[in-house]
C-alpha cells in the first residue's frame, strides 16, 4: 500500500499542519510516512502546499509522483493542481472554488469547508482540521480515535474542543455530500 496526498491552499490556512497530522497518525498506526512542504518566501499569503506519502514500505523519493488525493482550499491552488489528473485521483475542493478546467477525474468532493469554519465553528483557521475530518471519512485510512490523538498532540492547549468539533464537522460534510450527490 502506498498513498500520496497533495494538500494546497494559501499560506496561513494550515495545510502544512494538516499534512503533519496525517503523517503523524500514519506513523502511530505503524506505517511509514513522509511529509514535505512547498511555500513561497512570504510569511502569510502566497501559495502553500504540503505533500504526504504513506506507505507500508520504505519511502525513497520524497515527493508525490502521482497523488491519489488532492485537496485544494484556495482558487489559486485549484487552478494549479486541480487539472490533468488521472480518473482514479480523488479531488477535494472547497465549494467556493470554481473548477474552470476539466480536472480529469470525476471523483470530486465539493465541500463547504471554509464556510463551515467561518460560520459554523466561528474560526476560519479550523478549515484545515475540518479538511482532516473530511479526508478521514473519504479514505477511511485511520480510526477517528487515532486521528484525534495526533490532532490533540499538535494543537495549542485550550483549543481541544473546537478541534474535535472541526473533525466531526468534516466527517459530516462528506456524509452530506455522499447523501445528496
Amino acid at each position: 500500500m502506498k498513498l500520496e496526498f497533495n494538500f494546497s491552499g494559501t499560506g496561513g490556512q494550515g495545510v502544512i499542519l494538516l499534512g503533519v497530522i496525517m503523517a503523524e497518525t500514519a506513523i502511530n498506526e505503524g506505517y511509514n510516512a513522509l511529509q514535505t512542504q512547498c511555500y513561497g518566501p512570504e510569511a502569510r499569503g502566497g501559495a502553500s502546499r504540503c505533500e504526504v506519502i504513506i506507505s507500508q514500505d520504505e519511502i525513497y523519493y520524497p515527493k508525490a509522483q502521482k497523488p491519489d488525493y488532492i485537496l485544494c482550499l484556495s482558487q489559486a491552488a485549484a487552478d494549479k493542481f486541480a487539472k490533468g489528473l488521472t480518473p482514479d485521483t480523488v479531488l477535494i475542493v472547497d465549494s467556493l472554488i470554481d473548477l474552470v478546467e476539466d480536472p480529469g477525474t470525476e471523483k470530486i468532493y465539493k465541500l463547504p469547508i471554509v464556510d463551515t469554519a467561518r460560520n459554523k465553528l466561528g474560526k476560519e483557521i479550523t478549515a484545515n482540521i475540518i479538511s482532516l475530518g473530511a479526508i478521514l471519512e473519504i479514505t477511511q485510512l485511520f480510526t477517528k480515535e487515532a486521528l484525534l490523538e495526533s490532532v490533540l498532540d499538535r494543537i495549542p492547549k485550550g483549543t481541544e474542543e473546537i478541534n474535535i468539533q472541526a473533525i466531526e464537522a468534516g466527517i459530516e460534510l462528506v456524509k452530506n455530500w455522499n447523501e445528496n450527490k
Partner: protein
Amino acid sequence: MNKKALLMQGNEACVRGALYAGMRFYSGYPITPSTEIAEMSAVLLPTVGGAFIQMEDEIGGIAAAIGASIAGKKAMTATSGPGFTLKMENLGYAVMSEIPLVIVDVQRGGPSTGLPTQSSQADVMQTKWGSHGDNSLIVLSPNSVTETFYLTVEAFNLAEKYRTPVVILTDEVIGHAREKIILPEPGEIEIFDRLPPLEDRPYRPFGVEEGDKVPRFAAFGTGYRYNITGLYHNESGFPSNSQENAKLMLERIHNKLKDEEIIKYEKYQMEDAEYVFLAFGSTSRSAVAAVNELRAEGYKVGLFRPITIWPSPEKAIDEIASKVEGICVAEMNLGQYVLEVERIAAGRTKVSHLGRANGDILRPEEFVNHAKEYFNER
C-alpha cells in the same frame, strides 16, 4: 522494549542529535530553510542547562560558537547559503586554530539570496574551498531524518576527536521533510569529548602528545593561560613567522583528517553493477528509487553514496572507477562534485553529470532515462 516511532523534521533531528552529543551552546542568525534548528535549540538548550543566543548576524553567529567551544562547551551554528558565505572567514579561523565546532548548512537555491524555500546542493564546493588558504575540514551529508540525527552526533564526535570544524551539509528537502525516526536511548551511541591537558607535564596548547591525534584542549577559564590565533603559531599558541613551522603546522592540520575512520559511504546494488550513480543527500533517495526500477527491468546499475563528502571517499571511488563502465554523478547543481569524481577516476571510466539547479530535487525518472540512454548507446 519497543521504542516509539516519532514523526520528526530533519532540522529537529539535527538539534536532537546535537543535544545527544552534548551540545550546550548554540549561536546563530536565523535563515530559511535552517531556522527550525535555531528555534528548537532556543527551546531545548535551556532545559539541559545550555545557552542559546541569536547574534546580530551570521558572522557573529559562528564567532560566538567558536568562543563557546574555546570555553569548553560543545557548540553549533546553523545557516543556509547566504549565511554560510558570511561564515567563511571564521570557518577558516576555526580550521587554523583547531576549534571543535559543528556548522550546519541547510542548502537552498543560490547564488545570492536565490530560492529561500527551495532545495539545492550547490554549496558542496564552497564547504571545502569557500574559505581562503589550503582549507581542510570534514563535511557530512545526511539523506534522511534519521541519518541527520546520527550524523549530527557523529559531527560532534569528529569535531572533538580531530579538533576541527565539521560541516553538516544538508538541504531544504532533508531539513524540512518530516519522517519516521526512532531515537536511540542515552548511552547507545558513544560520545567523544576532547581530551584535556595531561597533568604530569607542562601544557603545550598546540603540541601533539605521543599517541594522540591532535593537541589536547584546555578550556579557557580553567586555569591555563595560552594564546589562540589564526596566524601560524608554535606549540605555545603564539604567532610564528617561521616557514619551517608553517609547513609542519599546515601538514599536520591536513594530515590529521586523512584518517580512514572519518570516511563513510554506502554502496547499494554495487556487486555486479556496470553503471553507477554517485549521489549524496536528498538526491541519493531519488537514485535508490531509480536503481530499484532499473534493476527490476534487468539493468545492472548501482548507487555509491558518499556520506563523508570531504575528505572525499577517494579509495572507494578509485576502486569503482577501475571496475565499472561509467559513473554518473547526480547533484542539484550545474556540476561540482563531478569534478572531484573526474579527478579520482582520471579517465579510467566515463564520468558524466546529471544535474539541475532550479530548486527541485532530481526525480527518479531522470535517473532512469539517463541510464537507459547509456545502455542503449553502448
